[in-house]
């Protein structure tokens, strides 16, 4: 098949790019992800998972069951930040500023 065929529809990563990552030594989906961004778009590899796994299997000669699935991350579906915040009034995430000045206070 034409190596310029898109595999990951969201990030528009083609067969050639995936094989280049394989040649660089990556042999699992998540490693290919880091090198190429394959599967990192809005669908979060829901569409390309098995197509990429098949390319990995063909390249490495490993059976499909040894080819790991990419790790799923929250949110399962894209969600607007405002929808996540909604009625939330406070945040437990400390600010960098607060943290640094408290260190000045104690370590100064």
């Amino acid at each position, binding site marked *: 098949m034409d190596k310029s065929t898109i595999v990951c529809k969201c990030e528009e990563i083609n067969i050639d790019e995936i094989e280049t990552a394989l040649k660089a030594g990556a042999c699992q989906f998540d490693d290919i992800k880091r090198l190429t961004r394959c599967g990192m778009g809005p669908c979060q590899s829901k569409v390309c998972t098995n197509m990429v796994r098949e390319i990995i299997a063909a390249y490495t000669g490993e059976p499909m069951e040894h080819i790991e699935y990419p790790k799923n991350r*929250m949110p399962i579906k894209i*969600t607007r930040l405002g929808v996540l915040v909604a009625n939330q009034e406070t945040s437990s995430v400390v600010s960098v500023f607060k943290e640094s000045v408290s260190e000045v206070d104690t370590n100064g």
Partner: protein
Amino acid sequence: MEFELVIIGGGPAGLMAALTAAEKGVKTAIVEESFALGGQLRQQAQVLENLPKEFGKQSGIALAKFFSNKVSSIGVTALLGHTMIGTYRNGTIGVSNGKDTFPIYAKKILVTTGAAEQAALFPGWTLPGVMTIGAAQILLNRERVLPGKEAVVLGCNSISYDIAKQLRACGVNVQGIIEKKSIDEIDKELIEKFESENIEVFFHSNIEKAAGKQHVEKVWIDNDVLKKEREIDLVCISNGLYPVTEPLELLDCEFTYIENLGGRIPKYGSSFTTSNSSVYVAGNAAGITCIEGILVTASIAVTGILEDLAILNNIEAKKQKEILWTELLKAETGRYSKVHDARISLVNDFLPKEI
């Protein structure tokens, strides 16, 4: 929000389970991301032949209506337009409805997220007009919109048969079915069905590429002997299903890989309980099966849940489950016997943990 049972996914498995649970007085909610209950039944105009006896023979669309009417009359909370997007630290599920995001507490969670369709790789598969066959059926029967006028279908299987027929009935010219396998590898009965409908099947063929300026206009069918170029505006991909398991992964369920169940699936025991003891799975999410298998696995799971909630005693539950497993064995015969065998070995592997 707090419930005794929260069901993720309002398709046939989820609805079946919700009905049984609610009948026994369990405070139940269904989290469904779409605007209606029924899942993929909602566009299935074909008559479902092998439904459990009590349902007779009816179309998926009719069954979806039956289920959703019954579910709302029996007091199940249907959270439509709600999507499970994650989990909180203690395993409580996080749900978003497009305006707000909040936890839903539940004693038991049943994941019935069903299956998704496998895409297929060929140059041009990303063009508009190339879609999964399920998408074409949704447009056709749920939305009453024509997905195209001139079509080819990739994949010769029972799903593509049903939908090709429906596409044609609505005026789409189905130019042919493209199948990678040779004629000997395909079920004879299915080939006859296509023949009787005068739908041509190109065996040992593939789509070499699809092309078009703005949307798909042409496909090149590649075959050992001939290359066919076809002018079309619709390519439907019927390349099989795989279980949708994202919620189970975020609920920390352990997984295994079983080709005959559709690839990666959660480990589960004879009550369809996963390695996370408050999480159950049923339907296609527990391995791709037939409609009867979907409904029966849901019944087994809900029996396990009722037992866990001490609504059914152990003896009753055991009896019930035995009957249902026999039913499941009957449902999963013929081309589904491999599914059943795989399921049995999965359940047997799980046994030590249940003790």
